[in-house]
């Protein structure tokens, strides 16, 4: 069965093509490209990806305008129905702004744009997205962001930790994130938001392929089962 994925493009997205390439490379099927102004998603999607970039020029707050775009209303409904959704970088910001994930992504504590490859611990290796990683795995994935400083109140952080919803954690402080959180899951486990870019680590030419297993995990779970 072909893997039926959609990659959303907002005005200002700039990692949508990388995301589409990574999904096609791993699944063998090119994803459907969806525009922010579309009101409806294609039917029977297996997977939705929100890519990195600077949607709407980061006006107001990163992800704030995109979270209120027509396509996001359909994505919120799909996510609540259980369709897997991955948001990377600006996609993570859109997911928090839309309320699909808790917390917020603030300006990096250093004030600087940070662009380098960082080690991440895969904290939860049981999820739809991370089931292919070995327990305790540390992977190298690039980050490239200005607003990646994850914030949530202590009660929310405790709940995320207690429920195994911290998917990825920086191995050393990167951007000021509370508890060095790099990626989190929603309560149902079908929505993952992460600042690092797994789609930039899927081919040897990228300098590393540690992100590939994330796509293999989710595609294998959905299609291979």
């Amino acid at each position: 069965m072909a893997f039926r994925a959609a990659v959303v493009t907002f005005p200002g997205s700039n990692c949508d093509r990388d995301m589409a390439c990574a999904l096609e490379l791993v699944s063998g099927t090119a994803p459907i490209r969806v525009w922010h102004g579309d009101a409806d998603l294609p039917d029977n999607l297996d997977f939705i990806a929100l890519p990195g970039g600077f949607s709407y020029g980061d006006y107001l707050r990163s992800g704030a305008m995109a979270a209120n775009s027509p396509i996001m209303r359909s994505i919120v409904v799909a996510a609540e129905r259980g369709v897997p959704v991955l948001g990377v970088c600006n996609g993570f910001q859109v997911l928090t702004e839309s309320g699909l994930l808790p917390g917020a992504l603030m300006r990096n504590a250093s004030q600087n744009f940070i662009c380098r490859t960082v080690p991440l611990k895969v904290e939860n290796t049981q999820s739809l997205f991370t089931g292919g990683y070995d327990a305790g795995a540390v992977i190298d994935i690039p980050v490239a962001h200005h607003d990646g400083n994850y914030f949530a109140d202590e009660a929310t952080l405790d709940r995320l930790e207690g429920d195994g919803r911290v998917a990825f954690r920086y191995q050393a402080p990167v951007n000021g994130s509370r508890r060095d959180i790099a990626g989190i899951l929603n309560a149902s486990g079908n929505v993952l938001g992460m600042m690092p870019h797994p789609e930039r680590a899927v081919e040897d030419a990228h300098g590393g392929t540690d992100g590939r297993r994330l796509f293999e995990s989710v595609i294998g779970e959905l299609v291979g089962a």
Partner: protein
Amino acid sequence: MKVRILVRLKPGVLDPQGRAVHHSLDGLGFEGVEDVRIGRMIELDVADGTSDESLNSMCEKLLANMVIEDYTIEKLETAGAA
């Protein structure tokens, strides 16, 4: 009616921009600056009689991120009253 909305980081939320500006003020030799917090001001021109409920809803749904920010609403004089 003109409405001025101030959006500020909640107390306790670290403000890296404010801290950097504080540092610069220190560097310029200004003494006695205890703290600097940076927020955002948004001016709206809305129909007279726009309800507080509607204004609050605008703030909570879009203009502020209630996870990290608080807002205050100040109604300014209407143009006709001047």
